[in-house]
């Protein structure tokens, strides 16, 4: 593959990205307007029930009360704060914010790929995977807040790639306060901040898309390097921001905030049916509590997989984050469809490095994954809308979904062209240096 030097006929391709962005924006605006119409005129609402929860919490906050008075509001007060204009301007303000974040994610994807000198064509295709994904454009326009989290995560990656350590740490602390799950990225980020590769304040050398050689750094582990200046700084700043946000929220909203926004997510065991393999197990045991040993045992597979992925792939930070997210969702006690956005936003970032061809391996993966989901949804429909007891079949469909997730994950690992995010600094002593060309 040739390096992307600017060709004279490059401009049409640039315009095609602009066209893509504008048409995506128009599509989202249309869907928001359509959503308002459907809510008013049809029995089934377009808007997600969560959006109503956020809006109600925001209007409570606007009138000076606690947003947690709204039952099932389980997010940071920042979200309610963001949606206060819902009660001032128009109730769709939040949807516009979420869709704007959605478009921002598209821009960030392009930025990240361009920083690694991916060719224009591959770049545009990757961005299309996000912007034109039906799941993506419905999630923002229906009023789901996940696009904001995705935008923050991608901004953190961009900051790291540009060497802005404090900015990356600030946003990381904020995103963990907002949604607890990004805590799983703490370890790989810390590991990638190797002082041989990353110096604060300097732009780190990035491993280009075209580089086929990887870092030859030996895997010797020095305890001293574990506590490098960059790592400590990152830990302190992000930890500080996280604690500060929680402290302010606790100051305003007390124990309600702690229980609803933080502890609920850590201890959530929902027996109602969802994609997770654990739902039936939890339901059957709901009358008696789980012992600490049982909880630990059910957490072990998740924990082991996360550690294995981090220690195998942390240098290729984005790939590691993608794999971790897929695995985290797949092994979680509760899986709802909105969690899929967490890895959909990282997928375009790893596609340029995949040796998987759409025909037929890629297509097979897509069909298997969507097929397993559809199969589960059919049984879910039987249970919820026809009232037939199909708990056992539904649970087996969850097992099939886990199998599909595992298969796709393994295939992606096998077909990935490992490429560390940061290349080697050219050091003066000449040892262990591979020239970056």
């Amino acid at each position, binding site marked *: 593959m040739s390096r992307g030097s600017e060709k004279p006929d490059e401009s049409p391709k640039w315009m095609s990205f602009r066209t893509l962005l504008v048409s995506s924006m128009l599509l989202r605006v249309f869907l928001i307007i359509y959503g308002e119409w459907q809510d008013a005129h049809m029995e089934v609402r377009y808007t997600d029930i969560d959006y*109503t929860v956020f809006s109600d919490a925001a209007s409570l906050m606007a009138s000076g009360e606690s947003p947690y008075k709204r*039952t*099932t509001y389980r997010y940071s007060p920042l979200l309610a704060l963001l949606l206060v204009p819902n009660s001032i301007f128009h109730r769709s303000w939040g949807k516009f914010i979420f869709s704007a974040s959605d478009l921002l994610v598209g821009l960030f994807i392009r930025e990240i790929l361009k920083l690694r000198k991916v060719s224009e064509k591959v770049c545009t295709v990757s961005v299309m995977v996000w912007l034109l994904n039906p799941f993506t454009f419905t999630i923002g326009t229906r009023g789901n807040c996940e696009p904001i989290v995705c935008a923050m995560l991608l901004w953190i990656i961009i900051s790291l790639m540009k060497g802005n350590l404090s900015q990356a740490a600030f946003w990381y602390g904020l995103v963990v306060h907002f949604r607890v799950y990004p805590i799983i990225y703490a370890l790989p980020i810390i590991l990638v901040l190797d002082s041989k590769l990353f110096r604060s304040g300097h732009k780190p050398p990035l491993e280009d898309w075209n580089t086929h*050689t*990887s870092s*030859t750094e030996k*895997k010797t582990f020095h305890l001293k390097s574990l506590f490098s200046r960059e790592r400590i700084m990152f830990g302190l700043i992000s930890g500080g921001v996280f604690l500060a946000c929680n402290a302010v929220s606790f100051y305003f909203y007390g124990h309600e905030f702690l229980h609803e926004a933080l502890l609920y997510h850590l201890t959530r065991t*929902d*027996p*109602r049916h969802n994609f997770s*393999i*654990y739902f*039936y*197990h939890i*339901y*059957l*045991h*709901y*009358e008696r509590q789980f012992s600490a040993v049982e909880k630990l*045992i*059910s957490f*072990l*597979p*998740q924990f*082991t*997989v996360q550690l*294995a*992925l981090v220690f*195998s*792939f942390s240098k290729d930070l984005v790939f590691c984050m993608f*794999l971790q997210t897929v*695995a985290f969702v*797949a*092994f979680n006690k509760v899986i709802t469809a909105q969690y899929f956005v967490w890895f959909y936003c990282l997928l375009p970032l790893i596609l340029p490095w995949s040796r998987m061809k759409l025909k037929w391996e890629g297509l097979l993966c897509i069909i298997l994954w969507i097929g397993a989901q559809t199969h589960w949804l059919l049984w879910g429909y039987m*249970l*919820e*809308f*026809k*009232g*037939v*007891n*199909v*708990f*056992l079949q539904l*649970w087996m469909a969850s*097992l099939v979904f*886990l*199998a599909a*997730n*595992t298969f796709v*994950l*393994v295939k992606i*690992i*096998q077909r*990935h062209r*490992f490429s560390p995010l940061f290349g080697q600094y050219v050091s003066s002593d000449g040892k262990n240096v591979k020239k970056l060309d």
Partner: protein
Amino acid sequence: MGSKRGRSVIAATFIFFSMSCLNSISTTQVGTSMLDSDTFCISDQYIMQSYFTTQSSLNESEFRNFLRLQQCSENIPYEKDVPAVATLQHREVTGEGSHRHLLTTIKLLRQSHLHELVIVERLPLGVFADPFELQSLQQRRAFSDVSVFGDTDLEQPSFRSNRSVVEIHVEINGNGEISVKLPLHARYQPIGESGYSRVEFGEPDLFLCSRHVPDQEHEQRRCLVLSVGRSKTQTRSVVWEIPAGIRSHTEYVSVVTFVAAVLSAFSILVASVLSSKVESCKNTKEL
């Protein structure tokens, strides 16, 4: 003298016995004191508004006690009226799955000066009504007023939650038929043997009240009891069968779940380790 004493002893005994009889009668009367066509007064917007401040469960006698306590103050006019009579014409649960409607049709046979029909649905354990859904129905003028009291936690399964009550107010004009469609949702049921849990609906408690005038402080509204606490309809009881987990599945579901998780985790572990080994082999080859 002796007969006089004897008579007073007999009288005293008689009084004593009759008092104790009265006591026992009045305790049973407490249980059945709220008869049809009795009236009481409420000062809140809803009959059930203050129920859970004094009572904790929704059984028959507690509910009747509560109604009995809602006394009218002296200055509320009471027009001696031919009491209204209503019959419950139709009751069924329509729909399929976890989200159904409770359809109730009431026919009023006589006109009354009280223009608001109040239906108090004491929901059985196992189903719930969504307050937000009911609010939007109220906005669409399906009812003039509706509220849910009691346990409105939408997420708890059935054995963790207490019962809830839905109070619906409907304007009536003339002596027509009132049809009310209440959307209900199934909770997750306690696990059992058969795979289904049977939820039975009794009859709603019906009252006729004078119209609520908003913004009037301390107004008392008179309510007439049409029917309270009938448990089953004459024809057949209204039943909803809700799917429930099967106890005998417990053992092998847990084992298979865990085995599946371990197998998956193992495959990913192996794939990761192999992949990073391949990469490091490649690196050493290129050196």
